[in-house]
């Protein structure tokens, strides 16, 4: 093909570019800023662990957990979304607006803790999705334990250990471990 036929074709077809305010629609599954459903979050911190640029941060407090996201730092790799065990994260189908200050778009979401069914202390929430996934085929009396807080769980296992000891095993001495 001759270059001049390319020129002629371009003249005939008209410009392929767009004038500024016009834009092409975003494709399905576009990697935009990360959004959270706080009612699904379990505060596991996986998203913060895999985030390469520190755009997603999780800070645990006494009765809630803070999920902080800075689109200004984000690389839109989608790692946090793909590792989230409860699908609490998704990405907006539109790119973030432009900004002057990287902190201007920062988002803070609070994930409230739910009270532990045993002691009533606030504890990171446990969602049904995760329970169905992680405790598949587990006896119902154990399944109840998945809702209690870490402290109660420790107490529980200590109680179980004590009950084993009573049956006649010598207690493990400190120097052994």
């Amino acid at each position: 093909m001759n270059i001049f036929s390319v020129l002629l074709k371009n003249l005939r077809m008209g410009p392929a570019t767009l004038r500024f305010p016009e834009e092409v629609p975003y494709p399905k599954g576009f990697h935009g800023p990360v959004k959270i459903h706080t009612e699904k979050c379990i505060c596991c911190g996986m998203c913060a662990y895999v985030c390469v640029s520190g755009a997603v941060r999780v800070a645990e407090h006494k009765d809630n957990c803070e999920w902080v996201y800075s689109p200004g730092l984000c690389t839109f790799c989608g790692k946090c979304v793909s590792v989230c065990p409860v699908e609490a994260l998704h990405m907006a189908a539109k790119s973030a607006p432009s900004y002057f200050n990287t902190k201007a778009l920062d988002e803070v979401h609070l994930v409230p803790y739910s009270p532990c069914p045993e002691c009533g202390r606030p504890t990171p929430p446990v969602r049904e999705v995760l329970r169905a996934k992680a405790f598949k085929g587990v006896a119902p009396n154990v399944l109840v334990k998945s809702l209690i807080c870490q402290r109660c769980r420790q107490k529980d296992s200590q109680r179980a250990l004590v009950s084993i000891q009573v049956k006649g095993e010598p207690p493990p001495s400190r120097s052994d471990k």
Partner: protein
Amino acid sequence: MSFTIPIGPYHPALEEPCKVQVICEGEIVQDVSLSVKYNFRGVEWLAERRNYHQAIALVERVCGICSNVHALTFCNALEGLAGLTVPERAQYIRTIMVELERLTSHALWAGIAAEVMGFQTLFMTCFAMREQLMDLLETISGNRIHYGMNCIGGVTRDLANPEAVRITVRRVRQTVTDQLIPLFTEDKTIHARCSGIGQMTKEQAVAWGAVGPTARASGLTEDIRQTSPYAAYNQLEFKVPVETSGDVFARVVVRLLEMVESCHIVEQALDQIPPGPIHHGPIFVEIPRGEAVARAEAPRGELFYYVSSDGTDIPCRVKIRTPSFVNLPTVRLMMLQANLADVPLINASIDPCYSCTSR
């Protein structure tokens, strides 16, 4: 009278900061010194301070054009270290992604080469074609560059719409065979600029360790996709275009033919892709103590990764050898006794990537 002309660090013909200091006698180049330190970010150093998941996203950012193949090779090294087998479907998706990336990269290169020759129309033609590929990659992965498709043990996203890939690839192949190849090989002004300049012999290519299309234009037949296949390349058939004249024109021809081959590979992969899982299974894979290497054929040539692990979730040492790192020093050989007007073109002909080189 000899005089020194600094081409760069910022120059319209070079997309990235790099300084080519040319010592000329008249317009004839007598000596060349290269300086590539302007893009140094210490990626290897940073990778030693991040866990494996963060490191994948980090190494993807070594280069903006061949990003996917970096993540792929790093994951290959880690999978070799952990002894994982990646599901077939994931291997095919990886192959399709790297081939589409090669097409994008070569389209970019062809455009830049045309621009350096002052042929703006051809630049626009190449970039219009590249735009289709970028849109396609955006629909597959969600991002125009830095696709974030690879993870240890598979890929993060499935190929949702194989028909869209097929349609775009068919259109791209048509553009390449109907427009780019005839324009680049038959246009008189391009011929006048490209043939016979920037010669590199086969012996020089071996001694300086040139890789990829730069080496294949000088008569070497090496292609990592054939010599040590990764992803799904051992199940696909393709030719490796080789030219023997070793000048800029040969490098143009090799890359154009490679684009046609890439289209062919993608179409084959789309035909053969099996259903099944796209991921090895658990998200968190334990990386045992040890070391591993992995190689891949990036658009610019052989890409090499070395990873050593001490059993924790942070790599002990990550070494990246990018293709431009060995291709760039050969530019000096090609430029000696060349014309000043050819210097940017010779530099562009090896498709240099400076952010890869200094990392």
